[in-house]
């Protein structure tokens, strides 16, 4: 990266990325062991309850991803640095994947628990709105326009979308939904919702593992965006060479 403004050498993924990737794989396997073998089967719902661990873990990571979008969108609007716009864009994409997991595993669980695939219950409805907001965000990012203008537009959309996250989280309390269970903060100890300790540990471990998966995906996504930017710079340089 030392010669010719770093255009000659290929950007390489960092050591931390490789280390986290190596850590994520066994952690996913351990999570699956904890979910399917170690944690007990819930008495009322049976094995279907085991959907809950990855469902909640995905919801947490979707919220985290959209929070990251908001933070880096604000940073981009203040500093106009392209890296912040890139990070926000990648995080939104991963957030959409996690929200898609939430929106598909939720109805599967609902079919078993509530005997219906879908109901316009507050949390489901607000999560669906959140999903569509970030689909719109990704669509804006794929528009063919000047990157600064696109960055500003998507940053505003990213911030507005993230404002929906606390609404999704609080919806079951604000609109007093009887269907969606309050998982955290309602137990005797104020955490775990009166869950069996082994279930609570499995949930925490799965949430942590999926957070690690989110970080690994973020690093890969940002690395690819850097490669694309590198290609654009090389193209511009080549055009300069040909015209000049």
């Amino acid at each position: 990266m030392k010669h010719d403004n770093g255009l000659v050498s290929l950007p390489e993924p960092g050591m931390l990325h490789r280390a986290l990737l190596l850590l994520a794989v066994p952690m996913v396997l351990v999570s699956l062991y904890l979910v399917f073998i170690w944690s007990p089967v819930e008495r009322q719902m049976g094995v279907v309850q085991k959907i809950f661990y990855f469902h909640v873990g995905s919801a947490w990571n979707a919220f985290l991803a959209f929070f990251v979008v908001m933070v880096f969108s604000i940073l981009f609007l203040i500093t106009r640095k392209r890296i912040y716009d890139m990070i926000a864009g990648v995080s939104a994409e991963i957030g959409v994947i996690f929200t898609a997991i939430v929106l598909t595993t939720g109805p599967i669980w609902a079919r078993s628990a509530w005997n219906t695939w879908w109901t316009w219950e507050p949390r489901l409805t607000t999560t669906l709105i959140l999903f569509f907001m970030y689909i719109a965000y990704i669509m804006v990012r794929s528009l063919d326009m000047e990157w600064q203008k696109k960055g500003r537009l998507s940053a505003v959309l990213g911030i507005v979308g993230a404002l929906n996250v606390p609404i999704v989280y609080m919806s079951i309390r604000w609109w007093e939904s009887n269907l969606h269970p309050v998982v955290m903060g309602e137990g005797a100890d104020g955490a775990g919702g009166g869950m069996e300790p082994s279930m609570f540990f499995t949930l925490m471990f799965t949430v942590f593992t999926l957070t690690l998966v989110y970080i690994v995906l973020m690093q890969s996504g940002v690395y690819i965006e850097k490669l694309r930017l590198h290609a654009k710079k090389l193209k511009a340089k080549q055009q300069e060479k040909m015209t000049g």
Partner: protein
Amino acid sequence: MTYLFAAYSIIWLLIGGYILVLGKRQKQAVNEVKFLQELHKN
């Protein structure tokens, strides 16, 4: 059991699918950079 299988299949399809998309994008970007670097050198 069918619901559980369906849910976890969807989870891994979505995550695996996204990893495949990222892999494809990375391969394309690396090839493009390498090609442009060759042009730049000549």
